[in-house]
């Protein structure tokens, strides 16, 4: 299925280390701007009890699930030990200061 480019916000509108909830049809996506400016997107659902990752604490390249503190990589969606699993990731695109997610 071809992917669509979904507009999220202007880059400067996204606060560093705060997650944003994006809803695109059935898909729930969490978009993050890291301290160094990189923009990352994950499915907004933690593998354990479906915590909304957009509400989690962001540290470096990781987000911690707000419900149970699972530590999840924002780069590849990998859940860190001692927990396990993977969260789907989405490619992001910065164009003319605008942030898009490929869904």
């Amino acid at each position: 299925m071809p992917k669509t480019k979904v507009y999220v916000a202007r880059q400067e509108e996204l606060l560093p280390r705060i997650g944003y909830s994006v809803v695109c049809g059935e898909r729930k996506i969490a978009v993050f701007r890291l301290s160094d400016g990189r923009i990352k997107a994950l499915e907004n659902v933690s593998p354990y009890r479906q915590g909304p990752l957009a509400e989690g604490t962001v540290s470096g390249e990781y987000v911690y699930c707000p419900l149970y503190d699972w530590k999840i990589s924002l780069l590849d969606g990998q859940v860190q030990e001692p927990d396990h699993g993977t969260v789907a990731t989405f490619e992001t695109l910065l164009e003319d200061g605008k942030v898009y997610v490929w869904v």
Partner: protein
Amino acid sequence: MTREKLLLIGNGMAGVRTIEEILDRDAERYDITIIGEENYTNYNRIMLSNVLQNKNTIEEIITNPASWYEEHRIELVHHDPAVSLDAESRKVRTQSGIEISFDKCILATGSRSFILPVEGSNLEGVLGFRTIDDTLNMLKTAKSYRKAAVIGGGLLGLEAAKGLVDQGMDVTVVHLEKWLMETQLNEMAGKLLKADLEQQGLKFLMEKKTSRILGDTRVTGLEFSDGSILEADMVIMTVGIRPETALARQAGLAVNRGIVVNDWMETSASGIYAVGECAEHQGKVYGLVAPLFEQGKVLADVLTGCETAPYGGSTTYTSLKVSGCDLFSAGEIKEADGVKSIEAYDGLANSYKKLFIKDNRVVGIVLYGDISEENRYFKLLKQKQDISAFTSVSVLPAGGGCCGGAAADDVTQWADDETVCGCNGVTKGTVLQAIRDKDLKSVAEVTKATKAGGSCGKCKGMIGDLLTYVLGDKVATAPTGICGCTDLSGDEIVLQIHERGLTTTDEVYGQLGFRNREGCPKCRPAINFYLNVAFPKEHEDEPASRFVNERLHANIQNNGTFSVIPRMRGGQTTPQQLMQIARVAEKYEVPLVKVTGSQRIGLYGVKKEDLPNMWEELDMTSASAYAKAVRSVKTCVGAAFCRFGTQDSMGLGIKLEERYEFIDTPHKFKMGVSACPRSCAETGVKDFGVIGVENGFQIYIGGNGGTEVQEGQLLTTVETEQEVIDICGAFLQYYRETGIYAERTAPWLKRMGFDHVKSVLLSAEQRAELLKRLDEAVEGKRNNPWRQVVEDPKLQKDLYAVIRG
């Protein structure tokens, strides 16, 4: 082959410890006899203070019961002192006339309390503090008499005085010098100690010289050189100890202050040795326990033919066994030629540190209040480490990973033969071996198996580190920092924030060498809080460091929705509010409406993006039900409607809530006001609980419900509502300033000491200071967060919007 006869004179700590060491090395070598003067088997004399302070029983301080002597076939000549020693014919005679011959003899006769040679010192009620019998005598006297004087404000005197206060006596310590423990502390630390002890109920007469003890048969008081008089029913002499050398003198051995020994603990007579407080080595007599054990080891090696390094003297340190007065002192602590010092005083934490440096090496240490780094400094001192690479800022404060100072404190890096527990002379190697061989899992088990940590207990942290080192995370409790990002404790971080003037989380992470430069969900909110309290004006609250509940001002529920709980001050509401809540709940199809545990109505299952609109339509303030902050005040109906109510509990509850709502605290802060002792508002388990009585209000603090239920303690009774409100504010601010993030008031109170907190809150002066700081700190910050969000579209967009793609 017949075994050699070894005779030990003195059944105390040094002598028996030497025998234990000998048995460890070669249990078959000697037929052993021990002569003891006291009517007890070997016991831990340094724990007598604990017996007096109700922390231990006599049974608990007996280190070797009669069965131990039997087991090792040691003959104990009990309760029968040696009276003559013939070094030539190798014979000793006891008081009861028993004659014992020996091949080798150890003198471990210890020392005795020095009784001031003043008139009246032989009166009934004048005691030393040296033995179990002295202690029992003091306990007995405390039952029938009220006033005690302790002459001598040194270590022993203060421990004795505290013990007698704990027994309910009115105790005055009489001290000759300007400050307490003058040989171990400098003036600053000595004065801090005095202030803390005064808060614990001790009284002091400083720079007083006792000239006479008054009384006919029993003591009635003291007369001082300036002519003044102190009434006393009991006098404890703790002005010093004198080595017990009578037997050695009679035998013709060389004696100065103590029995002179060489580096092998041998006296001037061959085959006769001395260890412990009775021995003088290179002009020094030791009155502390660690050197005794070091001497005992050398002597045990000598007596069993093991190769050994000569005894080269000991570096000693002191700590006081009185709760709430943590001090540590070691080495040379006087300013002298070439000795320079670094000093730090934290008035907020009442902590004082001073290091004495000579030729770039630490030669002396005085710590008062915060003694968390005693091991690190003591290692620097003992190892004579060159500290020229450190700046004073890096050597003095808690060593973060950045400056390398922490390494010396890391017990896992120590050599195996270094002593972990100074009180009992237990080395790191012994502890490690016991953990491995006996499969030990906790500090308590290590103490049981090795005695390490069983006396003053200051090495328990290191034992914990060794357990973690061997077992990894299988240890039940491993003391570490506030989270995995750092080894620093909350206290240490706060200290550093103040000392280095750190005003942002980034500075804290960078300068204190956190392993994770952006922290984790545990430390980020904590540091954000500490900065808010330390620098309320300079530090801007960081939403990204707030847990979601506090960032969004609503509790996150397990399905990712939120709860909305409006404030109902004092649990009171109106028909209009109820209708408003009902309308909003209906409009937004709220799945659950519930009365909370704290007398408010909660709307549960709300979507994040609906929060700002619902708040606007409710037009009520936030109850902070999600926050580490002042929560609501639970009240009973009180004098307005209840036939038992003596006070207007609802009215006072509302006033407290209005005055202190929206103030951040280390953990949630709950209050309750009951109008009578029936306490329908359950104020006994509130952080701040008030009970109305006929003529005023009883105030309870430190009550906690929740996971660790703790009953509040009665702080005081006051007459007016204003006093209740002021004490509450001072309490809040003191908790804010000294609390560790996520520490509730009950453990905080325990850590700080109830008596200490009480004295702070009941001092009008300190209360006013705290209230002033509270007002300054929260000025401009105490807003209803819901209103802020409702009025700020950018905030709504930044934090609450859901983007539709």
